[in-house]
């Protein structure tokens, strides 16, 4: 083989990048582009007769009361899950630093819900909430919460269970994340603050919390994108019910597309989902604000 080194290098690049890039472009890139075009058509089933309808799918979605419910659930879930997860994770990460027996046991169990996956944990939740034999519904009945068709058959019961299950499934990972964040805070900084008389809540509020900035940023971005990706959780727990009150974005895309074979409208909802994800990502970036440590550093030099 007497190829020039330059040719060899190019062949190597093409040959090694090719398989991954081609697979990616054909099975991810192409459907992504198609999504935008198909949202302008109307067709039922897998038939080839697609009718161009312009923005009609979007108009129908704008008038669809279920879309409004889905949007409400999506936004409420993002806000509440972010607050609950970060709050609990910071508290638990702090508590884990004391090496008690409880802390050691909890550390072992942290990722169990996530590794078992929402698929299994939601199945267990459904069993526990079964109105006939579930232990949790037994307890709820004893305390006086009695619903026909169980907790999951009640609009707010279903919503709360989905929120709790989501937070509980994800929590362990964020505890680890904030644990790593706490570890990275310089001991000297904390000692200096303590010498200045800061302690307990004050120390946390003025020193620890601002210094966790980069971890908080990762956490918010993750929670928000995890909420956008909720699918199995709702499919298993409520399937969107009762009466679509607990439905979420991807579940409604699936419902419109595969259960009702309104593919055009389902694809249009997916397109709205893309824009929604982008806007939410942008807002959450704004909400976290600038790096406070950076501001301080520049203040010192400036």
């Amino acid at each position, binding site marked *: 083989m007497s190829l020039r080194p330059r040719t060899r290098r190019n062949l190597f*690049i093409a040959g090694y*990048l090719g398989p991954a890039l081609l697979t990616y472009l054909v099975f991810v890139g192409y459907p*992504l582009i198609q999504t935008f075009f198909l949202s302008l058509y109307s067709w039922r089933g897998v038939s080839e007769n697609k009718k161009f309808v312009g923005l009609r799918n979007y108009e129908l979605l704008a008038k669809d009361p279920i879309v409004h419910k889905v949007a409400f659930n999506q936004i409420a879930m993002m806000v509440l899950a972010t607050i609950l997860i970060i709050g609990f994770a910071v508290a638990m990460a702090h508590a884990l630093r004391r090496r008690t027996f*409880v802390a050691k046991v909890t550390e072992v169990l942290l990722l169990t819900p996530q590794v078992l996956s929402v698929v299994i944990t939601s199945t267990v939740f459904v069993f526990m909430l079964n109105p006939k034999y579930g232990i949790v519904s037994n307890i709820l009945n004893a305390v006086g919460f009695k619903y026909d068709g169980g907790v999951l058959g009640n609009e707010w019961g279903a919503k709360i269970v989905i929120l709790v299950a989501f937070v509980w499934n994800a929590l362990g990972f964020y505890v*680890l994340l904030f644990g790593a964040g706490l570890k990275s805070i310089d001991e000297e900084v904390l000692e200096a603050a303590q010498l200045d008389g800061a302690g307990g809540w004050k120390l946390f509020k003025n020193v620890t919390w601002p210094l966790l900035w980069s971890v908080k940023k990762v956490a918010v971005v993750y929670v928000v994108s995890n909420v956008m990706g909720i699918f199995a959780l709702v499919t298993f727990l409520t399937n969107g019910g009762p009466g679509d009150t607990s439905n979420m974005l991807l579940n409604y895309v699936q419902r419109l597309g595969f259960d009702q074979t309104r593919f055009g409208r389902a694809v249009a909802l*997916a397109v709205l989902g893309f824009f929604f994800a982008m806007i939410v990502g942008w807002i959450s970036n704004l909400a976290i604000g600038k790096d406070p440590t950076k501001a301080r550093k520049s203040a010192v030099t400036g």
Partner: protein
Amino acid sequence: LKRLNISNTLGQFLLALFAISVIAPIAWVLITSFKNNTELFSSPWSVPTKPKWENYPVALETAQVTKRLLNSLIATVGTLIILIPISAMAAYVLAKYPFKGASAIKFLFRSGLMFPNFLVIIPLFLMFTSLHLTNTLYGLILAYVAYSLAFSVFVLGGFFEALPNELIEASMLDGCSHSQTFWRVMLPLAKPGVLVVTLFNAIGLWNEFPLAFVLIPTKSPYETVPVGLRTMTMNQQYTADYGPMFAATVSFMIPIMIVYILFRKRIQETMLAGAIKG
């Protein structure tokens, strides 16, 4: 000092609450899997006087436990065998061989991380239908490879970028070709990254639900564990005998629990590494 104690106690209480919330449901499902209907309804918390072992053979039969576990195993391992080499190759080229358009390709892979892949499910489903790839395990594997690429290329890229370029130059001077340099020198050095990506994907793929749910129709012989569980919970209202349903759930839990117990430390590190790099 007193205030500090209160917050400490509260923190430990919170940890205990979490630990119980993990252990209690698993314990309940395990206990119930040995019960008959009467015991289930009369005393949900008691340990059965005479464990009903028959629930397990019945579950293996009715819930097709073995078949579904095998399907999940084939889908997971099959995906990893293709995914890991091709994503490592691509990540290596993108990290170490600058060329015109490389940054655009990097951007393409990166943007795949930013949206839930289920949003493109309908065009993907139509494409798979016309290619006769639905209701097959190799079709599912193909989809899994494609939708795991963005993450894998991105994370592996980080590991390759951290390796010094001098290693490539030295290896080439020793007479190695580009390929030999990759397989014999660079890939072994990126082993920690390969482990992170393999473990992260293995757990994610084993538990994958949305793609399998759409690409494998219900009652298909190719149902994976997550799709099988969905079929089972959907049918639970028509079930007369609950014990086997719990036994099936326990059977589906066991393999992943073993993996978790064996590799817990590694999994925790992997999740963090995947998060911070991703």
